[in-house]
């Protein structure tokens, strides 16, 4: 019955596509697809910024939309393990990670020895470096243009406009954080490597060596010990970090905790907010 329903509802869409329906796995990618596609695309994200991107439960309506989609854009690597369980999508799939220079791509064994965020193919939070928007939007542009060749020039112009706005903002963010270049920080979860690399921050440790597993007392003690004699002043937490762990590290380590957002509905707005929060935290601790 579901198949019949899918067939019935997908027919009119395929017959006369007005706007290209693009499905993305994350809201950040949705924002980037919209930046390139403008009013020629209708974009839906399968996950919300507040959700854990690794564990999404796809709903029937979303499944239906995914089947109707002209194109699917994913973060790639092993960021969305749930995507493999979705029934095969006939539309072309854009893996946004393909052209991005990745960090932490050593073999997983090496990284587990060093207790880093254990993704098999490298750290997946690459959209948190604004510079990577250049390559991500290039992949999106190529895919959109092959779906709708007539609109290629429009897409190119929109992308150029978006990137020049981003470039301008990036310069402003770098100026805001310039005073703190080289500052050492501690993160709860190892999702900030790209962001730190771009803005010249040095991540010295992650409080939660394995995501979702609380640190052992000895790991916590070692971290607190290190913190007391160090020049580290700020701890970056994610919205879903364990609040009691964050509070304990902040209190006992004598540092300030700031929650940054790893994902947002508006790509530029996401950085505006994160840079504002981080600058405030770093400034108040000087």
């Amino acid at each position: 019955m579901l198949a019949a329903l899918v067939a019935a509802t997908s027919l009119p869409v395929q017959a006369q596509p007005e706007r290209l329906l693009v499905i993305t796995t994350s809201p950040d990618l949705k924002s980037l697809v919209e930046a390139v596609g403008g009013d020629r695309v209708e974009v839906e994200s399968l996950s919300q910024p507040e959700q854990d991107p690794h564990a999404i439960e796809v709903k029937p309506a979303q499944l239906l939309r995914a089947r109707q989609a002209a194109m699917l854009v994913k973060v790639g690597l092993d960021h969305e393990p749930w995507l493999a369980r979705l029934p095969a999508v006939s539309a072309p799939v854009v893996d946004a990670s393909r052209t991005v220079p990745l960090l932490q791509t050593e073999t997983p064994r090496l990284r587990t020895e060093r207790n880093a965020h254990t993704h098999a193919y490298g750290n997946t939070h690459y959209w948190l470096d604004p510079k990577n928007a250049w390559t991500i939007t290039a992949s999106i542009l190529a895919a959109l243009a092959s779906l709708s060749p007539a609109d290629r020039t429009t897409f190119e112009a929109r992308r150029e406009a978006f990137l020049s706005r981003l470039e301008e903002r990036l310069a402003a963010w770098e100026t805001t954080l310039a005073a703190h270049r080289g500052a050492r920080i501690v993160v709860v979860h190892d999702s900030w490597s790209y962001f730190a690399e771009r803005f010249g921050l040095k991540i010295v440790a992650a409080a939660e060596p394995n995501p979702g597993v609380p640190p052992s007392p000895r790991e916590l003690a070692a971290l607190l010990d290190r913190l007391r004699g160090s020049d580290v002043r700020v701890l970056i937490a994610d919205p879903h970090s364990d609040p009691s762990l964050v509070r304990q590290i902040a209190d006992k380590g004598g540092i300030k905790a700031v929650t940054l957002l790893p994902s947002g509905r508006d790509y530029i707005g996401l950085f505006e907010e994160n840079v504002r929060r981080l600058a405030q935290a770093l400034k108040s601790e000087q």
Partner: protein
Amino acid sequence: MTELLLWPFVAGLVLTGIHVYFGLHVLARKVVFVDLSLAQVAALGLAVAILAGHPVQSEAAYWYAFAFAIAGAVLIALVRPYEGALQQEAVIGIVYAVSAALGVLVLDRAPQGAEHIKQLLVGTILTVTPQEVTSLAALYAAIGALHLLLRRPIMQASFGSQDMPRGVLLFWDALFYASFALVVTSSVRVAGVLLVFCYLIVPAALAGLLATGFVARLVSGWMLGAALTAAGLVASWVWDLPTGPAVVTAFGAAMALAALAFAARRLTLRKSALLASSAATIAGGLLLVVPQMDQPWLDVLEGAVPPLQTVFLSASERATREEMLQSVARAREELTRLRALEQDVRWNKVEMDSEKAERLRQYLAGKSELSAGDSLVLRHLHGKARERQRYLLGLPLLALGIWGLWALLRRRSSMAIGSN
């Protein structure tokens, strides 16, 4: 160690105090899973609170959780008089599953809470604060005092309810489950569902094996709970383990030890011989048929008695093995030292220019790759030895096991014929 583990230990003592008491009641009432069920209902309450716009750590969220747990408790109390038609345990299971599913539905509308509720179920006893422990202790002292005052009817409702009129029983059941819901809601916030369940059931169950009488069981349960909390915390420190799961495992290990001790008391010579022969048959058979399979028992034996592996290697293979072992040990030592140095550089305790730091990082990566190569050689030699152990060790073991079983079973049948 004491600085970080003191408050978790005190929290463990407070939890032991109230939960052993409730555990004895719960075991007598045969509603073991009521705790998990009520905790899940409380989590549903939290999810609803988040949907209503309250932060997960707020007072309002706590009262939501408590109100939901009370509703669940009353529902469970209401079912008890109809035990004949509808088992209370079935209702407890249904409440658990449905509230878990409802929680998912609610969180779908309020996704920002999902992670926090997951953490809540796992628990964070390591990062408990003194304020949390003292307010928990005050609350549980009050509940304990209330139960002490009303001990006669409450005990009767749990341990001898058949003489109570139905309406009266319902009242005392509702009071019991309501105070239990309050305890569960408060404990889970600090220790997580799994740990709270262990505090409730394990010491009470072990005390049931060791002592008779409510007070004797309560006191021995308290001592067990305190000792196991300490054991779990020390294990978590010594072996570098997440604290909550380590304490849960300590409780599980105690239960397993008690079960083994009870089984050992019933073990006769003949039964142990049968067990040993069966084990030898299975282990020898597996080694013979699938030598490439992981054989953990043989790995442990080889670790304790290396010749068990080396006699199956040629002289040159033995020399290679020795060399690789030394090289791996040397590399491990060097890597530990350099990793510590890298950490010091990262934390700015040691000055190093960025080029040199990068060289150090790359050297570390290369060195651990090389060392991994050596380990691979060791694995290969290990596989070679296993291939030879297959016949020289597996076959005799299998034969010994089968002979043992045959001899034991033949004796039994001849005894049976003799007695006829």
